[in-house]
């Protein structure tokens, strides 16, 4: 049964969605459909920080990633996994006709303008990778711009894990192209050093009847702003985006999602969870879903939950749903920001659980569902431990009095 009886346009920010900061729900002044996209940096004016797509980002901490200047460094790559994965460097001109989506903001357009050569990862059509591909990328200072294309052919199946470490100012564009019936799980783990800045855009094209799972895990870095844009090349596609982030003192972790339903009978599910602790820890989550008039039979749901562990941390959460057709299977969104407070701590301790373990219990439980989606057990274990290290980083004063 369609959710809406008539064709209509709705722009519905959740009331109180950004309860911890602005009080007023934000109503975007334009549809996502009208937002500019271009490969040329010159097509984007330099943002002042008041624009819808930049208003949450601390513009003075972008470490030159909005300067249209060449890359100074490159990340060091370490690739492990099945040989069937092809890795090559190609001139961008050679990729005409591949259907690479144009960047959606200035930072990404600078990457595509400046990076003449593109790193291409290819899983040929029909090939099923039995083992995950793991790519460990390490930054070593300076400013690094990179454009990577991951192409998974029709009916191919792959799991790709990108792990980011070290320090750099990283401008990233990752274009993900999936063929008909492909099945891709893509994990991007940000475990940067505390000084790194990462402004990335992942553009994911979901083939006809293809399934893409995109999992973002952001723990490290001084500032991380990751925009994930999904679009559908044909009907029947499925996009499942999940994320976890843990922001501690001084960190700004921003995840922006845009799911553009332009093909009929596609589904999307977006679920991000974040924990925050420490002074001026900051997280931003923006989830835009656009259901265009053609996209009949769409089924979509997005949810963001935040857990604020200490005073002084702030989570912003802004879901937006625009619907241009009533002929859909369903569309929903939710956002909730909760606090781990003294009463919860007392309750758990009153059942014999020591304070540190009580905090671990709450945070581990909060992230468990999403970490369980990562198809590599070793990474699951590693992340669970990494989250617990984050938790231990702030020494908690025993309750006084």
């Amino acid at each position: 049964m369609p959710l809406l009886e008539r064709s209509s346009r709705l722009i519905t920010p959740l009331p109180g969605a950004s309860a911890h900061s602005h009080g007023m729900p934000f109503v975007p002044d334009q549809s996502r459909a009208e937002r500019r996209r271009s490969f040329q940096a010159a097509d984007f004016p330099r943002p002042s920080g008041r624009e819808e797509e930049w208003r949450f980002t601390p513009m003075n901490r972008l470490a030159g990633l909005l300067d249209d200047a060449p890359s100074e460094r490159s990340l060091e790559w370490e690739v492990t996994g099945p040989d069937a994965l092809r890795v090559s460097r190609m001139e961008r001109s050679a990729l005409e006709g591949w259907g690479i989506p144009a960047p959606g903001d200035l930072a990404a357009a600078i990457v595509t303008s400046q990076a003449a050569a593109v790193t291409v990862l290819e899983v040929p059509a029909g090939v099923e990778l039995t083992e995950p591909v793991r790519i460990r990328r390490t930054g070593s200072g300076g400013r690094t711009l990179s454009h990577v294309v991951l192409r998974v052919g029709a009916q191919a199946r792959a799991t790709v894990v990108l792990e980011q470490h070290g320090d750099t100012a990283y401008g990233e564009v990752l274009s993900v192209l999936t063929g008909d019936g492909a099945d891709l799980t893509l994990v991007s783990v940000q475990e940067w050093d505390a000084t790194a800045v990462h402004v990335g855009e992942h553009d994911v094209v979901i083939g006809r009847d293809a399934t893409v799972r995109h999992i973002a895990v952001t723990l490290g870095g001084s500032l991380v702003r990751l925009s994930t844009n999904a679009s559908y090349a044909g009907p029947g596609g499925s996009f499942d985006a999940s994320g976890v982030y843990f922001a501690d003192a001084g960190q700004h972790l921003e995840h922006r999602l845009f799911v553009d339903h332009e093909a009929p009978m596609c589904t999307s599910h977006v679920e991000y969870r974040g924990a925050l602790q420490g002074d001026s820890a900051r997280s931003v989550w923006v989830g835009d879903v656009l259901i265009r008039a053609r996209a009949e039979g769409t089924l979509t749901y997005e949810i963001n939950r935040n857990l604020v562990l200490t005073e002084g941390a702030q989570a912003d959460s802004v879901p937006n749903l625009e619907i241009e057709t009533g002929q859909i299977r369903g569309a929903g969104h939710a956002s909730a920001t909760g606090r781990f407070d003294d009463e919860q701590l007392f309750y758990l301790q009153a059942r014999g659980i020591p304070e540190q373990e009580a905090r671990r219990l709450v945070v581990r439980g909060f992230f468990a569902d999403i970490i369980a989606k990562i198809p590599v057990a070793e990474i699951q274990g590693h992340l669970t431990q990494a989250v617990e290290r984050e938790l231990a980083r702030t020494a908690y004063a025993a309750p006084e009095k």
Partner: protein
Amino acid sequence: MTVLEIRDLSVSVTTEDGPKEILRGVNLTVRSGETHAIMGPNGSGKSTLAYSIAGHPKYQVTGGSVTLDGQDVLAMSVDERARAGLFLAMQYPVEVPGVTVSNFLRTAKSAIDGQAPKLRTWVKDVRAAMDALKMDPTFAERNVNEGFSGGEKKRHEVLQLELLRPKIALLDETDSGLDVDALRVVSEGVNRAKVANDMGILLITHYTRILRYIEPDHVHVFVDGRIVEQGGPELADELEANGYDRYLAQA
């Protein structure tokens, strides 16, 4: 045999106008196997007594002592008190997002016992205890108290009571908000825990209806931060008939 001894306990809370004294010299001894009912008007300090024994940081003890088998309870952290054998079933149980009931129960049991419970018997024990309390098994996978109705929260408190096996239980209005069937189910749970563990009970209530299921050995009248009268079960009936007026006039 366990003895909880409360001597001359005075407790304050911090208010905007400075500390406010709420408990003014409470004396009470609860032994294994005994059931003590505490009845008294709203705001007289009954919950304050229960929270202070459990160690809630909001309450400052300004005088007196609380010991459990001679051990200084007031010197212990909240979790140490629980591990020493005290249990507080709260008047308003707290929601803990992100932690499932089953995970919570297992973690609490491991903490109390000092070792993880044997998985197979534990799962069976939890099932059986939930069943006896007429709790749907799906509660195990829900987050602690999140979205539970008032009555469901109280059942969940008693579920913990049965599984964690404390020596002394403080029940703060565990009966309020329960319908007649739930009251019986919950009371039976408390009685099972009592028998299984020779548990001592301090039961705070406004109503005698729960005392028909959980029979008190002693009834204490609590007014204005202290116990003003003690008696047997008959005192409860008298209070229900006549209210607290004659004690309030005195106070």
